[in-house]
């Protein structure tokens, strides 16, 4: 392996890491701003111009707080929980293609840390591990509210992963490949999957809300019933990691939705550009799509009330899974018909 290759990948990882964290930090700020606007308020505007330094102030506050571990908590698992959650939230970004290849110093640099043939499978596998972070944290706290939150989180994530996986399979069937690059290449220009699979998109988006524990599916941490849910006992930057990983997960799932249904970095009229211009435009388009979905997440959160737990289970098992299975079967028949199997 060449040194330049290692440096290139290392830089890419570093940049993606910084961007994910930066986007997540400013997502907290914009969430508060958007929430304020929805409620006819102004939102944070004291720290720096327009309150732009608010995430930094929040971070400093989080670090300065007392780092408390309850006496009867399982100390090592208690520390491990937020770490796992944050790690799992960050790791899917390695397979996400952030833009068309960039040409720099006479080399073609793929804006993707690693191109697995099974990229989407990798993402789903990693996201499923995310439930362990919450489960371990909730269990190790030795607190009934934490345990309730953890149990709710795990049952919710398991239920919604099925429908999410089946809708992803529908897209994979249409593409014929598990690689995210192939999925994006298939949606060249304006040929986006959303126009073929609107129902699939709705199911996937609903499941993405549930997977990231966002309202209206924020039952694992509902303040009004469970105090803080699985992070009741957490304080200081451990709590910060839990909260932060929620925003990172939101960023990554927005990117995934943009790739699977909205063509990733594809945009209409992209054939007129080439080389670095295309790459930069592609990155901008991709991030615009991501930010739109992050805004949609906020918008839904500040509009809808929380589901009751039985309603959540009804929706997951009795509505979303049958819909996604029927949708998958119809897609299968349509593909078979199209390829002349009958």
């Amino acid at each position, binding site marked *: 392996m060449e040194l330049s290759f290692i440096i290139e990948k290392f830089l890419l990882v570093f940049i993606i890491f910084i961007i994910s964290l930066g986007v997540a930090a400013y997502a907290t700020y914009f969430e508060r701003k*958007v929430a304020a606007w*929805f*409620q006819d308020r102004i939102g944070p505007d004291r720290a720096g111009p327009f309150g732009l330094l608010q995430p930094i102030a929040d971070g400093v506050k989080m670090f300065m707080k007392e780092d408390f571990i309850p006496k009867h908590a399982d100390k090592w698992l208690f520390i491990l929980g937020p770490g796992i959650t944050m790690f799992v939230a960050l790791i899917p970004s390695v397979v996400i293609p952030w833009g068309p290849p960039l040409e720099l110093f006479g080399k073609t640099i793929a804006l993707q840390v690693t191109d697995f043939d099974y990229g989407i499978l990798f993402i789903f596998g990693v996201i499923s591990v995310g439930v362990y972070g919450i489960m371990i944290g909730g269990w190790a706290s030795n607190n009934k509210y934490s345990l309730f939150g953890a149990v709710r989180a795990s049952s919710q994530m398991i239920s919604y992963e099925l429908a999410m996986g089946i809708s992803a399979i529908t897209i994979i069937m249409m593409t014929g490949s598990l690689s995210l690059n192939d999925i994006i290449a298939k949606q060249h220009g304006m040929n986006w999957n959303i126009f073929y699979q609107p129902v699939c998109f709705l199911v996937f988006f609903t499941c993405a809300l549930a997977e990231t524990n966002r309202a209206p599916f924020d039952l694992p941490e509902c303040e009004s019933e469970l105090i803080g849910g699985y992070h009741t006992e957490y304080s200081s930057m451990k709590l910060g990691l839990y909260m932060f990983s929620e925003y990172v997960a939101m960023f990554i799932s927005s990117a995934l939705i943009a790739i699977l249904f909205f063509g990733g970095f594809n945009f209409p009229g992209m054939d007129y550009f080439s080389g670095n211009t295309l790459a930069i435009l592609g990155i901008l388009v991709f991030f615009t799509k991501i930010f739109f979905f992050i805004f949609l997440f906020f918008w839904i959160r500040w*509009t809808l009330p929380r589901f009751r737990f039985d309603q959540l289970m009804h929706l997951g098992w009795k509505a979303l899974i049958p819909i996604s299975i029927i949708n998958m079967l119809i897609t299968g028949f349509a593909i078979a018909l199209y390829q002349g199997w009958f």
Partner: protein
Amino acid sequence: MLTLTNRKKVVSDKPMTFMEKIYLPAIVGGMVITFKHLMRRGNTVKYPEQLRPFAPVYRGMHVLKRDEQGRENCTACGLCAVACPAEAITMIAAERKKSEMHLYREEKYAAVYEINMLRCIFCGLCEEACPKEAIFLTDRIVPTEFARGEFIYGKDQLVEPLDNRIDITKRQNSGRRTK
């Protein structure tokens, strides 16, 4: 039955129709409502930079007035302390010395005069009780503090400075004694 408004809705628990079951129309409706609010600006007053207009008779922080020659009006009679329903006012009286003629108007004066701003309910009864037109409530706001003790205001904070007289004419009172 007579209805007061036409917005009354009869609550029923009939099973949901298909359109209601798929939630989407209601969700989109709700999101349209929140989006309309996104476009609207609120009524927020950014307080320290921007003040709401005060009523002319606003009852805020107290002032102990001086007369035209700069002498303190207060004679430490204690009527304000008696009138105070929150028992926020305490004072210790002292006798005026010959050399202090220019400082205090009456023969007796308040050596210590304290108002506990945490107890005060800003009712203005001290102002009504005062026979010497010494204490008035003004349109100033008691600032926030970090310690409770800071809220017990002594004479240093209450008596108006000689070079910076407090205007109380808005309360339809000159603070000038008629006698």
